[in-house]
């Protein structure tokens, strides 16, 4: 393993659902709890992966809505995905 991944381990990872516009980071894990979304944890995880949220992908928060800073528009590699912060809590980033 390279030094990069060691640094990753030292840094605390935080959910993408709490990040602010302008945040840029790497996905460390997709971890949904049963109460993260109305979807089951497994289903939410599959949907996130199907939209390109996999470990290692670079994400950046581009925009957010005016009410409750929700939803957010996230750049995942070269696609932009809109989702609510509630579901983005399952995406852990560093």
């Amino acid at each position: 393993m390279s030094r990069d991944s060691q640094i990753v381990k030292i840094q605390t990872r935080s959910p993408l659902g709490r990040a602010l516009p302008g945040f840029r980071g790497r996905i460390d894990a997709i971890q949904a709890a049963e109460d993260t979304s109305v979807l089951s944890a497994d289903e939410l995880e599959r949907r996130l992966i199907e939209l390109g949220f996999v470990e290692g992908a670079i994400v950046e928060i581009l925009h957010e809505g005016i009410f409750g800073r929700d939803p957010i528009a996230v750049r995942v590699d070269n696609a932009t995905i809109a989702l609510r912060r509630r579901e983005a809590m399952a995406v852990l980033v560093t």
Partner: protein
Amino acid sequence: MISTTGAGACHFALVGTPNSGKTALFNALTGNRQKVANYPGVTVERKSGALITPSGRKVTIVDLPGTYSLRARSPDEEITRDVVLGRLAAETQPDLLLCVADSTNLRLAIRLVLELKHVGRPMMLVLNMIDIANKRGVEIDVEKMSAALGVPVVTAVAIRRGGTDALLHQIDELVANRPESVAHSWHAPSTAELRTAQREADTILRATVKNPPKPDNLTTRLDAVLLHPLAGLVILFVLLFVMFQAVFSWAQPLMNLISSGFDALGALAHNTLPAGILQSFIQNGVISGVGSVIVFLPQILTLFLFILLLEDLGYMARAAFLMDRIMGGAGLHGRAFIPLLSSFACAIPGIMATRVIDNKRDRLTTILVAPLMTCSARIPVYTLIISAFVPATKVCGLFSLQGLVMFGLYAGGIFSALGVSFVAKYVFWRNEPSPPFMLELPDYKLPRLKSVALGLYTRAKAFLQRAGTTIFSMMVLIWFLASFPQAPANATEPPINYSIAAWVGHAMQPVLAPVGFNWQISVALVPGMAAREVAVAALGTVYSIEGGKQAASAIGHVLAGKWSLATALALLVWYIFAPQCASTLAVIRRETGSWKWMAVTFGYMLTLAYIAAFATFHIAVAMGAG
């Protein structure tokens, strides 16, 4: 022309992720040889077409709803899965899968290709919009990608003349010696399998695609303004305002033209046919019945022009993004915004536009509340009653009282729609979770004139065909009710008073008396079922006023003398809610595929109308307006 090799016509299925330009490619391949229908039993639109390859082989293509995976999550995606897997009994098994991908955004598409390989059918990957990718400096090694994926890969530019030549030649080659399908080994992938597939896709892309050092950022720059938390919303509302203006004012000249055309046609029928039942049927039943629906075509097309342009531009997903939170408060999906907006012109295109909502429950809620939006057919009724009963005074020296009442009626419609959807979502369907808002925001693209024109043409055809047939039969029924039995020769009252409609009106009157309606109103409500504004003409008829619609002011004058203010207000409120439109009900029946939801809509709207009119009438009487 049609080759006999390969056992007759070859059948392709077009699959791809949303926004891959799949529909543009379908249009380019099939031109106007398209057929739009519904899959049996569901309301998913089935688009199919045919093409002739350079060597003269006939290929039929079915355009499947876009999807990121075969794990079907919506009725649309279920169709895609079932057609691809050959599970749909009524559907020909596809001989080949044509997988379409946006060359500028390949990650999710390549993962889909890897999943589709498990289906066991011959497949070809089409890298669409290769021109945009090349312009941005993206280099794709097509041969290497084809080798890595194990399927033929070909580039295409769907929107340019000749942009599909290479694809057509490739199709020819594949049809000539197409490999056989093998038994499928597909199963819904687990999270682990999805991860592995996405990693494999990323590895293939790293090996075959070279991205420019500096990515194109036009979309990012545009979004900085269009998705700005505040400015974005302001721009959206300005856009909506322009759209409204267009629907109400630009369409007007054309609507006048159509309506005078039908009037002239009616007059022609009146003059050429001998007086009697045939003349009445042709003039009042067929010509004015069909005319009263077709007159809305310009409004509907103007509306669809905006919707198609914004959709092709890539703005629609952004509008949903901006409105998601606001709509969500009332239990509606962000995507319900556009259909509800359309319903201000007419609920019919609004209900048809709900197809963009992928979740069934969310779509149904939107369909149920769409008729509560104040459609343009209510305007003649509102105008008539307001000008007859509401004094043209100023409130606070600034706003006209009449304008305020009109505004109140619109607001009443909007708030009741939000209320009903809230109740539906949080009372009746609270145990049925609706899927979260997760949506790809595609890069902006300039809309193509040809595809917009083709889209408009298909909508116009569908509107005339679908609504036309059902509405027509309703019109004939209502004409029959209003004309039979005929008035006796020595009739002293208007002919409608001798008809079944009058009988129905009298029968309904005891029920409607508590809300302040007299028997004349009750009679007028019956033909008003065909289209709301017909009630105005019907009121004219029952009060024996000559001149029909032109005499609106005369009708108002008579009404002011015969009704109490309480009755007038009750009728206004009734019109906010009442399901007074047979064509809307017919479209709901079509779009939901069930009589049940039509009955539910009719029932709940009638109940609301009755309660609201009852309350209005009695409050007004209590306040001395009786």
